[in-house]
């Protein structure tokens, strides 16, 4: 097997947020990342750095990750001030080092959002997102006793639009990127998916009220149309979903 060779390798200076526990005070720590192949993913670069840190007897940089395929939504950090780094429509695990240049300084911080507390280093607590779903992000059917899959036709265009919304991976980048710490893109995407599909209609009103209410209660901010969320979303979920959520909210009759 061919090894990462010289001309394809770069050197970087990392400034990484280190924080021992939720309550403790954090600070930046510098590391040299050497002999980094351009074919590596960002997380593989961190693996290489961590191996060295472990061998030197120090605690490695903690970061969440699992699928490394851009679908589980575990990974994520602010890289040079951008959620998931500089590449559009890309999670951190799918960001490759060919997008960096030799000698770059790379600043890596956890999601900054008042609803996400730091657990350790780059790891944050995103259980607030689960709570929003628990408030109503589902169709209330029990197992069994449902009609045949083809009983209710769903026009292809509608199914495609619902799928566009359903692609959200729940990583929290939208809230981290938003100056108001709003998570409306996440919530809007789920509400849109069900607002579009016939299966979601019976509970539409209840759902939007419950999910929006929960979002406010958890301390997420309001949308003032900065559009940072959609710009940084690794799945390029459209801002249309926020508009659709707002329409659903109005339709729910609260203001009518």
């Amino acid at each position, binding site marked *: *097997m061919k090894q990462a060779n010289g001309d394809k390798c770069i050197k970087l200076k990392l400034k990484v947020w280190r924080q021992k526990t939720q309550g403790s005070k954090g600070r930046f720590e510098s590391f040299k990342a050497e002999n980094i192949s351009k074919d590596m993913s960002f997380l593989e670069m961190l693996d290489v750095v961590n191996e060295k840190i472990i061998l030197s007897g120090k605690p490695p940089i903690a970061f969440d990750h699992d699928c490394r395929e851009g679908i589980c*939504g*575990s990974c994520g950090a602010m890289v040079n001030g951008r959620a998931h780094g500089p590449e559009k429509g890309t999670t951190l695990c799918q960001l490759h080092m060919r997008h960096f240049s030799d000698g770059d300084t790379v600043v890596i911080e956890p999601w900054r959002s008042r609803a996400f507390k730091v657990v350790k280093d780059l790891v944050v607590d995103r259980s607030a997102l689960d709570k929003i779903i628990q408030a109503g992000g*589902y169709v209330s059917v029990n197992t069994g006793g449902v009609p045949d899959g083809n009983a209710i036709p769903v026009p*292809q265009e509608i199914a495609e639009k619902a799928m566009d919304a359903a692609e959200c991976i729940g990583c929290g980048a939208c809230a981290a990127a938003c100056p108001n710490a709003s998570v409306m893109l996440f919530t809007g995407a789920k509400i849109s998916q069900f607002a579009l599909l016939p299966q979601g209609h019976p509970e539409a009103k209840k759902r939007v009220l419950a999910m929006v209410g929960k979002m406010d209660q958890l301390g997420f901010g309001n949308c003032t149309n900065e559009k940072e969320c959609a710009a940084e979303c690794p799945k390029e979920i459209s801002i249309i979903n926020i508009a659709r959520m707002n329409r659903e909210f109005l339709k729910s009759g609260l203001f009518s």
Partner: protein
Amino acid sequence: MKLDSKIPDGPLSEKWDRHRFELKLVNPANKKKFKILVVGTGLAGASTSATLAELGYEVETFCIQDSPRRAHSISAQGGINAAKNYQNDGDSIWRLFYDTIKGGDFRSREANVYRLAQVSNNIIDQCVAQGVPFAREYSGMLANRSFGGAQVSRTFYARGQTGQQLLLGAYGALSRQIAAGKVKLFTRRDMLDLVVIDGKARGIIVRNLVSGDLEKYSADAVVLATGGYGNVFYLSTNAMASNVSAAFASYKKGAFFANPCFTQIHPTCIPVKGTYQSKLTLMSESLRNDGRVWVPKTPGDKRLPGQISESERDYYLENKYPGFGNLVPRDVASRNAKNQCDMDKGVGDTQLAVYLDFEDAIKRSGQDVIGKKYGNLFKMYEKITADNPYETPMKIYPAVHYTMGGLWVDYNLMSTIPGLFVLGEANFSDHGSNRLGASALMQGLADGYFIIPYTIGSYLAEAPLGKIDEDHKEFSLSSLEVETRIKKLISIEGGRTVDSFHRELGRILWEYCGMSRNNSGLKKAKKLIRDLRVEYWENVLVGGSEKDFNQSLERAWRVADFLEFGELMVIDALERQESCGGHFNEKYQTDTHEALRDDKHFCHVSAGEFRGDNRKPKFHKEPLTFENVKLTQRSYK
């Protein structure tokens, strides 16, 4: 101990109905008195938790990730099978059953597979009702695609993210039960031991991955839905946290481990690039609907693909298997790719790759149509390799993907420990020695939505279960053992990182217990693994402390188990002196290099029993009887 599969009597097509009728029911008012622990929130675990809670049981659910939605199932791409026959192309429950039995090279139980095919249709209905946005035709009807090992189109899909959408459906159902207070959810928890009291599974010991504390949970039954062990190979398409530890701890407590050597190497993955590589990325099998696999005819031909003319290309799958072409089952496709590379026909820098070419499909249907079907996969491929598959063929190579082996379970999905049920990829049940594409999602959801609610009820209704709680001495003993092992790992303070051991273990298994195996290699592997394990316990460097969020320690625990489990795989591979499906022993092959079974001696499930550290496990045999299908040499010509 004789393995009793508890397969019901009667004709194949009536077994499940009859069994459901015969199973005992729990009085609705009594259900809330039973507590069930569900470990895992993938398709199998999430569907189980939701369904049991809907029925009224008290459920506590555990997962490693920070959210149940992030379980490994989320990354399944291609689709889920069902025998709906919406295409009117000749599909039926019988055909799905037959394809799955044959695809598994006749090493699974007829009754289980038939039941799976039966409930497959309910799964699609359930998921549609949950609002899963499956692909649709212009008519508004559900769309299908084709997968390997079948000549009908029965795979339902949601773009290239079917697992994500199905899991989010199950996660929604689970979330609803959490909101209703019926399920208590524990995230960032790692199950490190099973607690067995009076011969029955009664609880678990988990490590809180944030605080490092060990926690005890007691219950009336335990459901393991902890996924497969593909990561024993280090490099695989599995998520990084996928592990064997929960299953292996149960094995050490008396659950038999069935067919550990049955592992699936998937033919279409992005080839390995460098030693730093942490995982391999699958390119869904659905791509073989439209992509054509080829290599240059001349060995050592290093020209770029565009410079190699049609007549100089060998579309080896289409030529060798005209009946199924590019859609032969995975084991067959993988072995053939390896053979081509062994003949020096491999392509790309490393020459460990073959082409998967979409040129003809794009010419035929247009870039738009192909983009709509596979856009996200093409994008992912380009991100990783910096090559554009619309313009140049993909380079692919086989990679470890799925494990057919798993804890032995009977027809009720119960292991050899009463009260311990095992679901999804963690059990061995339905795929024999090779799983067909789009059938793991089907199995996980079948187990969780439609099988466990019946069978666990019957167990609870019948078993006299005394009241116990976490103060029982077995919990303290178990917890103490776990603590001792953790402390030991941390105290070694050697000179090699956990990952470096894991990588080496992976190399050994890939070389000697991978796509192609032989007896001398397997014997060698056994020794190498033992030596590596000895070194591990003397020279591993974990770092940090146990009362902390310590990811190196998490991995250290898992690798310690992989180092024991790897040996079990190799022993099983040595015991099975035949080839079948994904288990290919070079000594047993047909003239055309296909797997040659020995039905006379090996038509059985082999289930390993733990008999103490460093003692050889005892393998028990469950004979497989085929009353409805004829055992044949698999042919895909």
